[in-house]
């Protein structure tokens, strides 16, 4: 039985030595870790996002030799959408000096928020995470463009008003149902709903779906059938979205009055079958592969066998979202190179790059994404931008743009953000004052 003891001893020995054998990074490259979840319960959404992010950065390496002549080291770390594994990923990439992290989970973002300033690694949580981190004066290291969940909610309300043929006054007397994941993400709009429903005079009906019952929403939709709301708003993730679409079809809810925040994918809508036509979601970038950049991705990455994505997946909603995320990463690195003059940038440089990020129409055209999305410009004070989004509608096989770009109700969202950011700093006292200087523009 001493063999077993040997095994234990060997295991203990490897435990101490193995992780310290991490390869040292070359000096002339930029390390960009990608936190992905191709496994676990949310893999259906996570895989296209990971592919999009990976393929864009790989394209830059293959076609342009990196950014500004500096190669990118793209390294995936599998989180499985699990906070503990995400933190483990963070610890494992930290010694390699990443220029930024993209947690791709609100649960992983939250513990990283206080760490970012200490470790000097900016966090880019694209349209998720802590909404209040839009405030650059309190969260200098956190960025969450292009819109917060509060922005999204007001954009949906404005869209509903326009469907009713006018301004937000048209919402008066309407009954609006809100079906959401009963976790921090879905509960975030609740204070906004409370104040707006009083102010604009609509009646809000809440249908919380507990995380454990995502796939079983029959009781919620029974209530929907009883209440007959004029419109339904969905804030879901993973299986919740597909189940909601299926249930809505089953209850014969008019799909064109069912509007979701930006997370449902094609598969979520397709699950509802033919009757799911007309289902709407917010989005801030185009779908489809009809852009020079995506053609390049096909040519240099997918056809060359350097991607894990199937050919027909390129151009899907969540794939393009990954591309958009990587565009922000790449442009932030590029801006950092311009602002600091360094070729091999560090996390501190990229933080400045993000604050000076300015992707205008001309730059979008240069990238090969003309008409893909609206220009993005971040500032020292505003780390979100509160950009406009549009509504897209499911036609049975793809999403189609169904509205113009809708701006959020900034006057309603801004006070909430401010109060929230202040409360966060107070509750986490002593919260460090911002010491990073703003770049003059």
């Amino acid at each position: 039985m001493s063999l077993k003891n040997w095994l234990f001893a060997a295991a203990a020995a490897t435990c101490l030595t193995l992780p310290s054998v991490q390869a040292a990074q070359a000096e002339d490259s930029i390390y960009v870790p990608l936190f992905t979840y191709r496994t676990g319960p949310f893999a259906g959404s996570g895989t296209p996002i990971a592919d999009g992010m990976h393929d864009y950065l790989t394209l830059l390496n293959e076609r342009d030799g990196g950014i500004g002549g500096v190669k990118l080291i793209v390294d995936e770390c599998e989180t499985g959408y699990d906070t503990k594994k995400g933190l483990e990923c963070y610890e494992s990439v930290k010694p390699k000096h990443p220029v930024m992290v993209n947690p791709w989970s609100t649960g992983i973002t939250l513990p990283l928020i206080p760490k970012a300033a200490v470790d000097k690694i900016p966090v880019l949580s694209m349209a998720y995470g802590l909404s209040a981190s839009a405030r650059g004066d309190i969260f200098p290291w956190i960025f969450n463009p292009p819109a917060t969940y509060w922005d999204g909610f007001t954009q949906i309300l404005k869209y509903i008003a326009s469907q009713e043929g006018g301004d937000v006054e048209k919402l008066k007397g309407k009954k609006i149902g809100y079906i959401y994941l009963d976790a921090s993400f879905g509960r975030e709009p609740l204070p906004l709903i409370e104040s707006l429903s009083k102010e604009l005079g609509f009646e809000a009906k809440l249908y919380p779906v507990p995380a454990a019952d995502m796939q079983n929403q029959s009781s919620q939709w029974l209530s929907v059938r009883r209440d007959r709301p004029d419109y339904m708003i969905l804030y879901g993730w993973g299986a919740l979205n597909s189940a909601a679409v299926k249930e809505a079809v089953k209850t014969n809810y008019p799909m064109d009055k069912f509007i979701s925040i930006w997370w449902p994918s094609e598969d979520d809508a397709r699950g509802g079958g033919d009757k799911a036509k007309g289902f709407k979601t917010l989005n801030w970038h185009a779908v489809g592969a009809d852009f020079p950049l995506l053609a390049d991705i096909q040519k240099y990455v997918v056809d060359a066998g350097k991607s894990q994505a199937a050919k027909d997946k390129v151009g899907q909603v969540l794939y393009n979202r990954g591309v958009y995320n990587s565009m922000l990463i790449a442009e932030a690195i590029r801006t950092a190179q311009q602002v600091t003059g360094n070729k091999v940038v560090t996390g501190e440089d990229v933080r400045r790059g993000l604050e000076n990020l300015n992707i205008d129409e001309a730059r979008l055209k240069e990238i090969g994404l003309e008409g893909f999305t609206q220009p993005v410009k971040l500032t020292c004070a505003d780390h979100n931008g509160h950009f406009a989004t549009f509504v897209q509608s499911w036609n049975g096989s793809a999403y189609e743009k169904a509205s113009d770009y809708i701006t959020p109700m900034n006057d309603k969202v801004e006070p909430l953000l401010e109060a929230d950011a202040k409360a966060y700093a107070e509750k986490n006292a002593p919260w460090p004052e911002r010491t990073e200087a703003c770049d003059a523009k």
Partner: protein
Amino acid sequence: MLYRETGQFKQSYASDQAIFPILQDRIGLAIILAVAFVAIPLLGNEFVLASLMIPFLILSLGAIGLNLLTGYTGLLSLGTGAFMGVGAYAAYKLSTLFPGINILVWIVCSGFVAAGIGILVGLPSLRIKGFYLAVATLAAQFFLQWCFVRISWLYNDNPSGAIEVPARTLFGIAITGPSATPVTRYYVVLVIVAVMTLIASNIVHGRIGRTWMAVRDMDIAAQLMGIRLLRSKLLAFAVSSFYCGVSGALMVFLWLGAAEPSAFEINLSFLMLFMVIIGGLGSLIGSFMGTALIHILPILIRSLPEALGLPLAAATVEHLTFMIVGALIIFFLIVEPHGLARLWQIGKQKLRVWPFPY
């Protein structure tokens, strides 16, 4: 030859009743402690400390808590995750309500809150046993989880719905929050876990532990011998929940740094139960071994391809890890259904008679 108690005479009851009566065991323990207190902080990098050792110790503490209840007293519980959550939320509430008092005090106090909840949940245990009790604790798990989401007072009305850890110090050194170094956090966790393990060891070797084991083996017989069932079962629930509560508080304050309610969901309860079963029911060292198998082994397997320079995609490695760990769990359970602790014991027994086995 090396591991033999021949010639070690005991001349007092105290030495006969010692937790480690054999000299070699004491030396072994001293080596383990020396490795834990000196070698690991010296040799390990930040990743080893922050991602391997701190979680390992914290989860081990929770596993010890569950082992006291399930392994020693025979009461099956599926509410471990929720009890850990109670500890975490209690520590969060207490430390934000009274920020002037040291966080370590509140971490220990959070254990008492969890113990109180544990007693309430344990009340039905007098009448129900086995699977029925498991269902009752499962109900507690769901109810408590619901509380963590729904009662906004618990998380100070944070719009994020999560509890965030404020920065706190001990003797001027940051022990929680972003500026606390992994080494400090490791030492804090290690001291707490070592002391609490010692206490647990004393409990299970003493009158209380024997009472629990009597209840586990046959509660009617125990009752006839004069053991008050309600009292000892509730005590088991209280002590077990205390350990789980402290473990949960440590998990949020010294490991994760912020936690959503989903951190304490049913998966965590199952994970803890796996650790205890694979490690060995009714064994403290088994709790550590089980945790090592469930927590440390996957990380080692995951880092193996990179260390060897194999170009495998992260997701593939993850799938492989699942398969290998799953196979290993089944392998170990087939080899020894009583867990790793039993293997360890058999190993020691064989060593004792080596090289002349009989």
